[in-house]
Every structure is written in structure tokens, then in C-alpha cells.
């Protein structure tokens, strides 16, 4: 006759396997943020999906065991003490090893994706980079994001430092986003592009993005920056075709040719520190 422990273990194993498969299939249907408007955003989505898939069997196992134990081993009418437990080397080795493998595997993938998202070696040979007379061969498009209380403006150093109220990017382009601020700390968060970068005065904080789809995106400030922080958002960010971008930037240069802007610099310093008295 099979021991009662083996029966419990077998039941749990079968239920765990079935529920885990169902759970994994369900989790794979979820569209994880931030989407796929850029390669970096798609990487983040797939990484979140992978983490959810890997954590599903763990979640199912823990919850299943808790519920099963509460039902199968609940106290009967007679109060009796269970046998003493002195630990189980095999179980301990197994859970530490499995956890370690999962954690190191995820850490490896996470670090690889982080490095690839910000690797400048990737930024060569794009359609814009190779064909643009301004950016030069192998150069990514540079865009400067300027945080100020309470609006983000955008400068295009490749196009004479012209400044815009909205961020417009060409599709299929490698873009270096240089994030800075003219006053206090802000944080540039272009949700669908998968970019969130601190905007600090006097600092040139660089984020990388490779656009893959045309469409609009939302920009928000992700650092509490004062009374109108909640209004520091813009739903008019756009990824457009290369030709539309060329038309747009040419029109912007024409419209803004008389607009005063400071000499282009990697970062700006607020001054004076205290104005008046």
C-alpha cells in the first residue's frame, strides 16, 4: 500500500502541473506594458512577460500547498500533536537551488537587456543615421529634453538646436535622448517608448530608444516637482515616418527661425540661485 505522504505529494504534483500550465497560458495572453513602440519598450514587455511566466508555477505551488494543507491536514475533533520535524536536507537543497537558478537566470536576462538598451555600439547604420546629412554616418538622432517648471520642451541639436513644444521622432531610428532640466528635478517618462530618465539641472542624462512603430505616445513628469507636477503631461508625442519627420522638422526650423533659444549646451544651470529679496 502506498504511504499517505506519497498520495498527498502525487495529488499536489498533478494539481500543480495542471494549474501551472493553465496559469502560464493565461499569463501569456496579457499585454504587458509599456508596449512595442520602441525596441526598448518591447524588450521591457517581453521581460515582464517572461518574469510573469516563470513566477506563475512558484505562485501556484505556494498557494496550492497552503490551501491543500489547510484542507487535508486540518485539525480533527481530537487534538493530537503531529510528529516532530527536524528538517529535510533534500527539500532544503532543492528549494535553494531552484530559487537560485531562477533568480540568477532572470538577473542575467535583465542585465543583458539593460546593457543592450543603452549600448551605444548598437547605434549605427540606421536609415536616419546613414542617410541624414546632419547626423552623419552611423550617428543616432540626438534630442534634448528640457524639463522646467512645468513643461517639457525638446531641442534638436542636429537641426540647428531648434526647440519644440512636443516630441516628434522618426520611425526605425536610433535616438539618443539627452535629458536635463533648467530648474529642479523632473523625470522624463515617455510611457509607450519605455523611457524614464531623471531630468536634473546641470546634468546630461542619456537614454536610448530605437523606434519601431509609428503612433502617438504620452509624456509625463515622474518626479514630484511642485504645484503643477500633475499637469506636466503631454499626449501629443509622436513617432512618424522618416519623410514626415523630415517635413515636420523643416517646417519647425522655418517657423522657429526667429525664436530666441540659449546656445545649445549639454546641460543648463539655473541662475541666480535666489532672485531679488
Amino acid at each position: 500500500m502506498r504511504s499517505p505522504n506519497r498520495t498527498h505529494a502525487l495529488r499536489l504534483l498533478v494539481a500543480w502541473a495542471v494549474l501551472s500550465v493553465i496559469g502560464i497560458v493565461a499569463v501569456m495572453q496579457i499585454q504587458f506594458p509599456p508596449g512595442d513602440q520602441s525596441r526598448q519598450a518591447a524588450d521591457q514587455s517581453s521581460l515582464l512577460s517572461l518574469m510573469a511566466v516563470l513566477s506563475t508555477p512558484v505562485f501556484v505551488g505556494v498557494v496550492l500547498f497552503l490551501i491543500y494543507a489547510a484542507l487535508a491536514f486540518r485539525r480533527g475533533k481530537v487534538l493530537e500533536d503531529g510528529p516532530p520535524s527536524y528538517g529535510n536536507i533534500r527539500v532544503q537543497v532543492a528549494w535553494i537551488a531552484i530559487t537560485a537558478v531562477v533568480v540568477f537566470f532572470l538577473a542575467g536576462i535583465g542585465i543583458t537587456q539593460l546593457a543592450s538598451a543603452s549600448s551605444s555600439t548598437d547605434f549605427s547604420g540606421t536609415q536616419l543615421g546613414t542617410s541624414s546629412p546632419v547626423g552623419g554616418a552611423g550617428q543616432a538622432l540626438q534630442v534634448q529634453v528640457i524639463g522646467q517648471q512645468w513643461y517639457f520642451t525638446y531641442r534638436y541639436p542636429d537641426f540647428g538646436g531648434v526647440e519644440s513644444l512636443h516630441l516628434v521622432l522618426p520611425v526605425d531610428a536610433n535616438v539618443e535622448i539627452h535629458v536635463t532640466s533648467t530648474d529642479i528635478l523632473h523625470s522624463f517618462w515617455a510611457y509607450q517608448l519605455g523611457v524614464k530618465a531623471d531630468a536634473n539641472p546641470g546634468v546630461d542624462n542619456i537614454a536610448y530608444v530605437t523606434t519601431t512603430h509609428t503612433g502617438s505616445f504620452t509624456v509625463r513628469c515622474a518626479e514630484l516637482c511642485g504645484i503643477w507636477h500633475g499637469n506636466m503631461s503631454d499626449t501629443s508625442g509622436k513617432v512618424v515616418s522618416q519623410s514626415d519627420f523630415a517635413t515636420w522638422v523643416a517646417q519647425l526650423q522655418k517657423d522657429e527661425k526667429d525664436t530666441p533659444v540659449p546656445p545649445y549646451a549639454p546641460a543648463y544651470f539655473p541662475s541666480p540661485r535666489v532672485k531679488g529679496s
Partner: protein
Amino acid sequence: MGARLVVVLLATAALAALVAGFVIGFALRFPEPLAATPAQAGPGFSVQLETVAAVGTAIENPRPDDPHPTWVGYLPTTTLTVPANSLITITIHQEDTPSGLRNPYWATARGIEGGTFHMTYFDDKGNPQEGDFSAITDPANAAHTFAIPDLGVFVPLEGVNANAPPNSMNVISFSFRTGAPGVFHWQCFVPCGSGTIYGNGGPMQTLGYMGGFLVVQ
């Protein structure tokens, strides 16, 4: 022991009531609304505002009992109600001296009818001048800006020239169109909070001085 517990409970309740009262009072405190009136000349509706170096000593709408009489401000209020789908003309009696824009980009007007604002001002010799402009000549001469970012409206307000006669004001007027009803924030982009770090504290961070709500209804 029992008495001590009661004291602690009462003190905790009193503290919680104070904090709740402060938060609720802060969240519900809005400057009195000012409604746009039908324009006397031309179509649409108009709003008249005054910008001053110190709300306690304004020429037209002084607020001597204001808790911050030395702060810069838009007067008489910063909650403006305007009709939806209408032409709104804002006239600003600008009495403050230049403070300077940190980002010169805001020296150009955007999002207004015809692309220009009308301004009466004083030149370097202190003589009155008048004209239509799409920008102020020097970003360093901006006293304030009137900006409704979500409607794309940005208008620089030139500071009163140092050579102008005492109690002079620049009068700036411009129009924009409202769309569907909604509540939009408006603000100044000149860091004009004197005595605060980088000029962005005090009146820049408090409703009723350098920012408020445009209620489109």
C-alpha cells in the same frame, strides 16, 4: 492606567483632526472665480487681469489683507471661468518690472488668434508706444507669461521699462479659442518668486498668485 489611555487616545484624535482639517482646508481652498463677460467691442468674451510686483500695493485690485502682501501676483484672482467654444480675449494690465525668462523660448507667443498680441508699453526713453507683436524683443525683459499649456497658449508679458513714469503699466491683450468644457491649469513661466530658491517658490507654487485654473464651461 485607564486615565492615561484616555488622554493618549484624545490627543491622537485631536492631532488626527488637525491634520485632516489642514489637508481638507488646503485641498478645498480655491481663489474666488472671475467670470468672463461679453466683449464690449467685437465678438466673444473678455477677462481683465492685473499683474503686480506686490499684491498688497496693486493699482487696481489691491489685496492689503493678503497673507503675502509682498508676493507677485495676478489680480483680482486666478480662477477664471470662460464659456466653451468661444473666442476669449484676455487683457492684462502689467505693472511689474522685468524679471527675465530662464528659457528664452517662451519669449515667443503661441496659440493665440492671429499669432500676435497687442501691447502698449514704454520705450527706453520712457515714451509710450503701441503695436502688435508675435514675441517680446528681449527674453530678459519678460516680467511674466500667461500660459495655458494644455490649450497651447503661451504669451510673454513685457516688464515695465525702468524709464517709464511712476505707476505705469503695459497693457497686453490677446485672444484664443476655447474648445470643449474642461478645467485647464494656467501659469507663469518666468521664475518670479523673489527671495525663493531659483525663483520658483512662494507665489509660483501657490494658487492665487502666479497660476490658477481656467474653467471652461
